């Protein structure tokens, strides 16, 4: 991976989300998707957002990405108001969104083209990324020749090609089987540990959120709001086996209880 300064700025709030509301105009009454969202994210922080479907977590991510406008409130990155997609940001979606008509290598390089940069300058980096993610020898294959896990790895390589400071991940491993998800979780933890990118990771898996996050933002729905922010004080790097520890279990239990109190899951 490219070296990144570990401490990015003296300003602790790299991303500042303040009083964000988002309402959709449905026929008749407007629907409130997000209400009163306040969240500061430090540079190099890994923030997991966990919540039930319909809690607006994806909407929040799209607002941070500058793909959707907020109805009121403000989102700023490095004190700059987000209106259009910020520079040096990349998104990983739940579905890999690979272009079927492009080879794996061309898929990884597509964002380079979109940004108007020179392909040749990034080809070596693309091949190295693919190698790092175990896709050696697949550069000239087409996406349909790959398994679901491999495809999502390609999508991650694509996001990393321009070496973004900010990585927004919208349930990236939601569609994968449990074993592949474990692998990709461990890879992402390693990636964060080595590069200290700022990552916002949306999931509906509590384990995943706790395993990866410095903080877990627990969201509730109707309207979409933050129920609690749970700091995760588990030392890094975190091997997958950490999930068997009592400490880890306590965090998961705590969040599960939060959902139970909202009536979203049954208490154990």
């Amino acid at each position, binding site marked *: 991976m490219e070296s990144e300064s570990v401490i990015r700025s003296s300003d602790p709030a790299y991303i500042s989300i303040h009083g964000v509301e988002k309402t959709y105009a449905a026929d008749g009454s407007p629907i409130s998707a997000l209400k009163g969202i306040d969240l500061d994210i430090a540079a190099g922080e890994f923030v997991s957002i966990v919540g039930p479907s319909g809690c607006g977590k994806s909407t929040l991510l799209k607002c941070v990405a500058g793909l959707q406008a907020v109805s009121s409130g403000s989102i700023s990155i490095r004190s700059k108001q987000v209106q259009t*997609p910020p520079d040096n940001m*990349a*998104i990983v979606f739940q579905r890999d*969104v690979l*272009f079927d008509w492009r080879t794996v290598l061309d898929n990884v390089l*597509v964002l380079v083209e979109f*940004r108007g940069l020179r392909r040749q300058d990034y080809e070596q980096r693309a091949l190295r990324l693919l190698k790092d993610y175990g896709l050696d020898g697949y550069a000239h294959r087409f996406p349909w020749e790959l398994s679901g896990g491999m495809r999502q790895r390609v999508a991650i390589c694509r996001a990393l090609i*321009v070496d973004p400071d900010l990585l927004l991940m919208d349930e990236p491993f939601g569609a994968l089987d449990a074993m592949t998800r474990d692998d990709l979780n461990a890879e992402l933890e390693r990636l964060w540990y080595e590069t200290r990118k700022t990552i916002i990771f949306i999931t509906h898996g509590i384990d995943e959120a706790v395993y990866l996050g410095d903080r877990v933002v627990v969201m509730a729905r109707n309207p979409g709001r933050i129920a609690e922010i749970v700091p995760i004080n588990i030392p890094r790097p975190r091997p997958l086996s950490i999930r068997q520890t009592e400490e880890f279990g306590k965090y998961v239990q705590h969040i599960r209880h939060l959902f139970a109190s909202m009536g979203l899951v049954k208490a154990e």
Partner: protein
Amino acid sequence: MSSTSVISSRRWGLSKQNEPMNYWRKTEQTRTIIVVLAVLVVVWEMSVRIFGIRSFLLPAPTIVLSDIIGNPIFFGKQSLYTLYVTSVGFLIALVGGVLAAIAIVSSSFIDRTFYTLLVATNSIPKVALAPLFVIWLGTGGAPKIAIAAIIAIFPIVINTTVGLRAIDNDMIDLARSARAPRRDIMLKVRFPNALPSVFAGAKIGISFALIGAIVGEFVAGEQGLGYVILTSQATFNSTRAFAAILVLGVLGTIMFFIIEAIERWMLPWHVSQRSQKGR
């Protein structure tokens, strides 16, 4: 193997187990067509001979075939002319149709005006315009090409427009997240994603272009297979008319399969092609 998997593997032509069996299955359609055609031709030949039908009413297939074989230069020349009118008309329709679809998808104004007009005029039988084109463009190749193009353009525009619109929102978001210019979103995301639809439209379009070419030759022709059919009618030369129709059928089939071959070559990634390549 359960019955459902037999159906689906036949449908998609999946090839994994026992190759010869699969080859047999894959060619089933072709074999069926050949058998049906052969039976039809034999029945036709027999009925003409048994009932002594006179050839100006219904010529026997052997006589039709021998007319073609006996006049290779004549039929070759006429076919080439029709082929030329059809392919030029089709190419104009293809380029014009795809550009029009891009304009429709890019601009809501063009969508509201031009596309609405297009859909409305689609219900007019375009062949009715043929005599007008002769008035406007004379009796040379131009009016025939114009008719072929105007008939072929409709399915191409409509299919391409639908294809350009049927896009996964995440794909657009992905492009927007990298601040892709509009041109890139169109040419590198929407258009390649729409290519299967473009080809679907083109396959209908090529058949339509052939119809347009024949109609054009009917209305004002000095050459071409349509003109051959028309003049044969004037002289009660049914054998010649049947021969021209037979050549037309072959021509249309060949052009259709050429488009399909180009599609297979250009879209190896498309779902409909994957089975042939194997996973």
